[in-house]
């Protein structure tokens, strides 16, 4: 019996190690940045908006998260799905999730079930249901319609407000 247990533990360990290696040597390099919009006025009085890294943020400020996925292998990646939880203390901004060539869905249960906004329903304590609000969203998912070719970069972006 003990020998069996050891074998099982060993197998699990191997499995975990394999996964770790897969992450380290994955074929898609995933990067995320958190930025805020900064409005600057030039000498001629014209305003321009720039994205700058978050340095000073207070409740009510909006953060723009940009995720980039680069295929660093020499074969196309299929069924590419990018997942990003709405960070704790942040509220998703309605209609802000975009990604060229992707279909965007959301979850309100921590990432178990994804759906379009109109399909998401929240159960109230009294048993009734209401349409989920952007504040209910816990996760965002971008599903790429086409394979990501070697060297190509896919972008996913969303905005969230600090509670």
């Amino acid at each position, binding site marked *: 019996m003990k020998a069996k247990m050891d074998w099982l533990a060993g197998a699990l360990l191997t499995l975990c190690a394999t996964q770790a290696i897969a*992450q380290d040597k994955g074929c*898609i390099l995933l990067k995320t940045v958190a930025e805020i919009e900064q409005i600057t006025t030039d000498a001629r009085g014209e305003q321009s908006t720039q994205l700058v890294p978050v340095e000073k943020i207070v409740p009510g400020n909006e953060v723009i998260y940009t995720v980039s996925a680069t295929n660093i292998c020499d074969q196309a990646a299929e069924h590419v799905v990018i997942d990003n939880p709405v960070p704790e203390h942040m509220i998703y901004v309605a209609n802000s999730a975009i990604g060229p060539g992707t279909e965007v869905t959301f979850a309100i249960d921590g990432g178990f079930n994804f759906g379009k906004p109109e399909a998401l329903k929240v159960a109230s304590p009294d048993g009734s249901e209401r349409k989920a609000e952007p504040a209910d969203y816990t996760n965002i998912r971008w599903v790429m319609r086409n394979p990501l070719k070697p060297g190509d970069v896919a972008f996913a972006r969303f905005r969230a407000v600090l509670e």
Partner: protein
Amino acid sequence: MRLKQLAAAVLGWCVLVGVAQAVGTTAGTSVANQAQVSYVLAGVPGNSTSNTTTFLVAEVLDLNVTLVSSTVTVSAGDTNRTLLFTLTNTGNGTEVFPVALDNLVAGDDFDPLAASTAVYFDTDGSGDLSVADVAYAAGINDPALAPDATVAVLLVNDIPAGLADGLIGRSRLLASAATGTGTPGVSFAGQGAGGTDAVVGANGAQANATGEYQLSEAQVTLSKSATVAGSGSSIAPTPGASITYQIVVNVAGSASATGLILTDAIPAGTTFTAGSLQLNGIALTDAADADVGEFQGGATPSVRVALGDLTQTAGPQTVAFTVTIN
């Protein structure tokens, strides 16, 4: 994220309620984000995670001062009259808020006089100055408030003597964030909670509220007149003639004159006419009984009418009685 997911899964409804908090995420909180990707490459599933972005929430310096007392009715010369305020930290970090009293408020009729110790914390929550209340000393026990925390503050003033009815005097409580004040958005590098920046909030990190004292005085005036009725054609005040005295009591001002008692001695050389005492034309018995009037005999006889509590709106009260000249 784990907490939020749990809350969403179990009680999605409550997340909305949490969002309604006025203060927002506590200063110094770290907000992290990490994305993940899954894919299939040459038939083999793979996945990877991104770097983690992290930033700290800066501290917002914000506060609210609210007057709790309605206008305090006072009399000239009153001492230790209090106004109750609340001071609330509407920022997102624990902050110290020095407070101050200002009695030079424009637009009022008089300046209240700050008591020797003029600012107290309403420590026992009574809403008024009491023994348990702790005196405020600037720089020594400035209130340090956690986000959303409130402290009740009392301003204690004396009312100058000799002020007329109806006059208004105002007293103001000022409070500001110890870290700094200024134009909203101005920041103090590294001075927020957890080494974050402190940022001046929407109201400039300072606030005030003004309370009001109003004089309420009552002036009681008496006017007495006498009418002589002679016997026959004589109207001279000669022995046997009767004199009817009329005393009109008037109350003016916004206050109520309480427990008014009118007494008038029967003049020497005259005799009170039994049953002649009247109030507003209605007879009062001479005995000390259920009605408000009585005649008191003895060596120095007098009439006595208990008028009770009177206000200006009650109108003039007329007491009358008759005597006969001996």
